[in-house]
């Protein structure tokens, strides 16, 4: 169907408006980083700094242990992703494939855990972690983030596994695979887009966390994650928003890089051809 000019106009206007909404905060972050402190407080604000401070990135990188913070964030995120995927893949597969007494109820119960706010869970988690002597360790984040990720990831993966025809595993079993073998050799390779999307979701959730990191790690500066580290840059009397923005740009970069890397796996349609 050919679009009329008015339809095209409406379409592009919507796309541009949406992009503006999404990208403006990112643009403002960069502008803030590049502006001098004086310019930041000027009214009306300038939309591009008169004297962009390109050296701010090098200065912030040298002044703050940003690499260490990023490394800690990375460890916590990779750990959370690994643990949650292990649990969610098994749970999602079981919910998708096996009917058991109370299976559906159990599945919904898992999902309700996702509805509990982090602030509600932070106190019991704190007391559990402190009784295991884990407070201050990155393991607290791996475990706490997994409690947030697993319920939703389980449901995302269940939904994906539901789209994969059962006959593929049956064929694999007739071909000599065990039920686990059929899952590993046939279902998981086909589920790659679903796995990638879930892993990305898990990674972003862990990377973006502040509440748990602040509660469990505040007294262990060596284990600070990037988000926690940045907030410590806020001074009691003076806050250099340009420094904070520059550090924030560094923290956003890994997420962008991961999106670019996983993008090709996120493309669906790998099951095309399994059936007619």
């Amino acid at each position, binding site marked *: 169907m050919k679009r009329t000019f008015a339809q095209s106009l409406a379409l592009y206007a919507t796309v541009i408006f949406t992009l503006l909404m999404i990208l403006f905060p990112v643009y403002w972050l960069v502008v803030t980083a590049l502006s001098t402190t004086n310019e930041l407080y000027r009214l009306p604000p300038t939309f591009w700094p008169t004297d962009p401070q390109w050296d701010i990135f090098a200065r912030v990188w040298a002044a703050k242990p940003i690499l260490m913070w990023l490394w800690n964030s990375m460890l916590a995120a990779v750990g959370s992703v690994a643990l949650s995927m292990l649990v969610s893949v098994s749970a999602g597969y079981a919910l998708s494939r096996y009917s058991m007494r109370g299976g559906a109820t159990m599945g919904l119960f898992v999902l309700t855990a996702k509805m509990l706010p982090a602030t509600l869970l932070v106190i019991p988690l704190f007391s559990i972690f402190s009784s295991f002597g884990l407070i201050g360790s990155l393991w607290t984040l791996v475990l706490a983030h997994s409690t947030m990720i697993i319920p939703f990831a389980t449901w995302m993966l269940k939904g994906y596994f539901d789209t994969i*025809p059962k*006959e*593929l595993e*049956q*064929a*694999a*079993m*007739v*071909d*000599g*695979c*065990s039920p686990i*073998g059929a899952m590993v050799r*046939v279902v998981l*390779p*086909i589920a790659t887009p679903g796995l990638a999307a879930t892993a990305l979701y898990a990674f972003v959730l862990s990377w973006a966390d502040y509440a748990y990191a602040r509660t469990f790690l505040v007294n262990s500066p060596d284990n600070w994650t990037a988000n926690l580290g940045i907030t410590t840059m806020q001074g009691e009397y003076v806050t250099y928003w340009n420094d904070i923005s520059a550090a924030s740009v560094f923290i956003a970069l890994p997420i962008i890089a991961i999106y670019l890397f996983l993008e090709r796996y996120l493309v669906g349609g*790998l*099951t*095309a*051809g*399994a*059936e*007619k």
Partner: protein
Amino acid sequence: MANISIRNVSKSYGALNVLRPFSLEIENGEFVVLVGPSGCGKSTMLKILAGLEPATEGQIFIGDREVTDLAPGDRDIAMVFQNYALYPHLTVRQNIGFGLKMRGTDKTEIDRRVDDAARILEVTPYLDRKPKDLSGGQRQRVALGRAIVRQPQAFLMDEPLSNLDAKLRVHMRAEIGALHKRIGVTTVYVTHDQVEAMTMADRVVIMQGGLIQQIAAPDELFNNPANLFVAGFIGSPGMNFLNAELRDGQLTAFGQQISLPRATTHQGPVVVGLRPEHLTLGEGPVTFSVRPTLVESLGSEKYVYFEAEGARIADGEDSKSKGLIARVSHSGALPRNEEIRLGFDPAQLYLFNFKTGERL
């Protein structure tokens, strides 16, 4: 290759019996077709045979080995699925060789056997493609290749042709038949299509409601149906049925008394069956007049739909005419609503018990 023995296998989900005790002896190399309307239990039986579903009761033997509780992979069978179930992430070569690889077959041996299977099924040019780059017919061949490459004791096929278009279906039907003749492996084939059953099978098992209705060779089924269901299911168009009265060997139907050539002691109401192709245009030993409600032309022959007193629609038969059909050879015009004469030979009538539907 082996014979298969199914002994009193049943399947129920709680109170729901999907398969009543089912027993069947399949000879080595035989091609057996399970046929019936959807929900008759034929696919369930095949899945139990494959080990993909456990039987509630009963035993299954393949060759001399009891396989009732063995995993699918340990039964030495191969299965072809309705939707092909090709592994989309593997190439055709890997798809065909997958079962051999799982059994730890040597790499060069796998290659040799995959090449052989590919040659038999003429898929050699596509060996390095993924399933999504193949047409429906090619996918079906790859699925068959995956089955034959393992040289199993038996093939199980679950409606393998129902996803193909009509022309390809006829072609693949002949190919599967030829393949079976060539390699002679015991085959159990499930379909809802009576034409497939009739053309391919050595023996047909007709099922309905989880029960075997009749086990017989195709011609035997057609000529000697055991009951109303089988009579109505086999044949296209299906057999005509009429409610009629039988008294002292005299049948009251089509508004006249018909003397039955065969002696029968049965008295009272019966169901009379008459195949559409046994009706002829013009005079016969018994002749009656009708006004066609619809005439469908297939070129050399015509389906003449007409109404008659006592006409009865067989189970599962489409009821668009609410009447009877005559399949007559005639290439001229047959106007609707103009009286014509139809004849038949009473020796070709089938009689069924009015209550039980069993053949008299």
